[in-house]
């Protein structure tokens, strides 16, 4: 395995050492995956630095600027968190589905549809203008989750009944969701011909830190909203599902070996539909929290690709619900930095490089690398 691809007469054969790859026969220690993830990020930063240098930039100044723009003050930390909230929720949605090896690429669409469902509560209106905030939040979470769940149910049932590839169906449903929202924005809920709805009443807003500035002066101007609490609750719930519920056990078993699951009497079709629905519901809550916590109206541009970045977040966190939180904050920082840095493609490039190094690092979880002297090996 070690020398595949090297020709017999290759000059590398004259090198006194060679690299041997061996499958790991023992489980690596617990810290090792975490270490690998951090190492991947570090290597990604180095690769990024190289590209920045070639492009004529100063990488260290750029990184310093990114760090300052995202973590430099209480204000920007708060902004970073605001960006991280939808990533956490979407990342959790993907984590749940990916654990069963259901490739839900449709979190973006479920996000949009969740935003629609939450907006419908205000704009239809389902609740009177004067309803208390807690009732608004509860109803909007419910409808956001419900709409997301429906958006997950469709590819789920198609997969369970007709074995339709969920990658394609969820991806396509993203476009339907955006167009669906556009219809309501343009035609039904438009405000004076603009492509957006009217502003939601204050009691339909998620509480923000700045709302408590009267009690705690430090919170003045901080936009971190109640969605953070929702995301943290969701992380705990997903962890409980995966590791402390029978259903979670079924998900993990189906994910690792569907035939073994069948043999153990577990219904794969039922779990496919359920997991897609819950995954969709969590992504829907992400849309709700963005609408009600940040935008405060339904409009077209509500997501800079949160649904897709969430996939990366889930992978980087190695599908661990609690690791989603720090990883989302890192990516929130990169999104925020995108506003500050020109060209704004640099943080996007960093996203991509991190993903590549990360996927590559998985290899090291399975294989040892040993460097041996040539004579010794032969």
């Amino acid at each position, binding site marked *: 395995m070690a020398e595949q691809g090297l020709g017999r007469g290759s000059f590398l054969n004259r090198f006194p050492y060679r690299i041997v790859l061996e499958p790991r026969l023992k489980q690596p220690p617990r810290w090792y995956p975490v270490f690998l993830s951090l190492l991947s990020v570090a290597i990604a930063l180095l690769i990024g630095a190289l590209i920045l240098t070639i492009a004529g930039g100063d990488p260290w100044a750029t990184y310093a600027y990114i760090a300052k723009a995202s973590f430099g003050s209480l204000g920007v930390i708060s902004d970073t968190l605001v960006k991280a909230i939808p990533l956490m929720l979407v990342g959790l949605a993907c984590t749940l589905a990916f654990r069963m090896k259901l490739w839900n690429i449709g979190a973006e669409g479920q996000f949009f549809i969740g935003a629609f469902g939450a907006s419908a509560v205000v704009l239809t209106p389902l609740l009177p203008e004067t309803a208390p905030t807690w009732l608004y939040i509860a109803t909007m979470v419910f409808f956001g989750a419900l709409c997301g769940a429906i958006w997950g149910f469709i590819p789920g049932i198609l997969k369970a009944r007709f074995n339709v590839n969920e990658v394609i169906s969820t991806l396509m449903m993203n476009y339907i969701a955006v167009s669906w929202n556009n219809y309501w924005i343009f035609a039904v809920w438009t405000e004076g011909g603009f492509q957006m709805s009217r502003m939601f009443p204050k009691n339909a807003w998620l509480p923000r830190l700045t709302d408590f500035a009267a009690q705690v002066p430090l919170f003045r101007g901080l936009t971190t909203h109640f969605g953070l609490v929702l995301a943290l609750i969701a992380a705990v719930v997903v962890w409980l599902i995966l590791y402390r519920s029978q259903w979670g056990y079924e998900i993990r078993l189906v994910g690792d070996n569907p035939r073994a*699951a069948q043999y153990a009497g577990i219904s794969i079709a039922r779990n496919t539909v359920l997991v897609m629905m819950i995954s969709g519901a969590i992504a829907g809550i992400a849309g709700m929290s963005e609408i009600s916590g940040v935008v405060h109206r339904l409009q077209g541009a509500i997501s800079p690709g949160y649904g897709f970045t969430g996939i990366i977040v889930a992978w980087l966190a190695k599908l661990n619900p609690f690791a989603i939180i720090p990883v989302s904050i890192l990516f929130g920082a990169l999104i925020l930095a995108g506003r500050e840095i020109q060209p704004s493609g640099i943080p996007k490039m960093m996203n991509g490089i991190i993903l590549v190094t990360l996927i590559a690092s998985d290899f090291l979880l399975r294989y040892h690398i040993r460097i041996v002297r040539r004579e010794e090996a032969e």
Partner: protein
Amino acid sequence: MEQPKPTEPEVIVSMRGITKRFPGVLANDHVDFDLRMGEIHALLGENGAGKSTLMNILAGLYRPDAGTILVNGRPVSFASPREAINAGIGMIHQHFMLVPSMTVTENILIGLEKPRFRLNLSAYDREIQALSERFGMRVDPRAHVWQLSVGEQQRIEILKMLYRGAGILIMDEPTAVLAPSEVDELFHTLRAMTAEGKSIIFISHKLHEVMQISDRVTVLRRGKVTAGGRSAEGITREELARLMVGREVIFNLQKKPCQPGNVVLKVEDLWADNDKLLPALRGVNLEIRQGEILGLAGVAGNGQRELADVITGLRKARKGRVLVGGEDITNQAVSKGIRRGVSHIPEDRTHVGTAPNLSVTDNVVMKAYNRAPIGRGWLFNALAASNYAEELRKSYDIVAPNIETPVRLLSGGNLQRVILAREISSAPALMIAMQPTRGLDVGAIEGVHRLLLAQRDAGAAILLISEELEELIALSDRVAVIYEGQIMGEVNDGNVDEIGLMMTGSRQEQIRSAEVPHG
């Protein structure tokens, strides 16, 4: 120049002293094999006897550890199947290697150098049409492979080899996937090929086919030749069966006398299809009582897997009933059988029996996760699960660093212990054990045998499906024989000759009535 004698056709392949060792198995032990020009030479033996290994060596897939191969009198050493094909030797495997979305002609041309750039398909279509007609094979060269039946796909594989100029064809159990009418057509084609001077090696374990088609027979057993190049005329089925199965019993187990109780499993007139939708079970009747082991003998692929699948609920029956403890569980969910106390040691440990990346804990609770104390309400009690796993690890001697280790890191014997621990700890009423010792070393085999006997003595009804006849006879209280989806008969005195005959398609009544006149 030496002229070949007219009575003895020229020997074109001669294998001498072929030895091939795999980890833990001596697959071929000094095997000699000759092939003459224009003959059909059957290679007979049970599964694991070393037939496929020997032919894979001839076809260039494996290299022998020792021995020589002469083709047309010249020593050869093939490093790849391509070299073997260049020497005129082509092998047709049981699993076809075809591209479903391409046409017949395209599939035959794959890998050839000839159509360099411009692909004039219709010219090749005609060429292949002519070739197929020459050997009496009906194939439409323009058809796409996905539209074709298994029999037609096999013809493409044959054409592929003929098109490449193969004079020697190795066919690895070609009839295993065919319907009876297709078998006749295949035999017709084989005769047409030998008439043109091509030679065929026909790997099989079906006696009647061997008697029907072959000129000479070589029988392998446990990697050794028990009959080399015997003329098919004048050899009896009984003799072939004995050569193939052998008769010595090597196991010597301490077994308490059987004390059968109530009927636990009753299978009535069961019919079911295999994965290719051909009938695999054709009216099976069985009965197993408490405290009894029923062994099911048979050459692989005669319906054993389908029977285990239908009883455990993994496969739908077309007709008939499966009763466990008097309750009809035919075509019910798998979980219903599990609740009725059906446990199942599957044939395929890594793909069915375990989840390789999950921990020992997660694997041993696979059937207990939704019952107290591990499952309560919707909760999964992780602490109870690891206590349970730790207990099983100790009592079943599962060698693993800890219970959090993913089971893919365990050895075969330990993996089987994980499965046994799980299946036995549920105190099953009925246990379906499929090939429970395959691939294990002697020590592990003994452990498995002891666990099965302990279950029997504790009152479980056990269906033991195995291809190891010695194992079946040593462990079972009764041995039933399955052949092409039907039970041929049942013995309880370990009569190997009778079992061997039934395994190759004779009914017990026929055997016994044939014996009477001789006294």
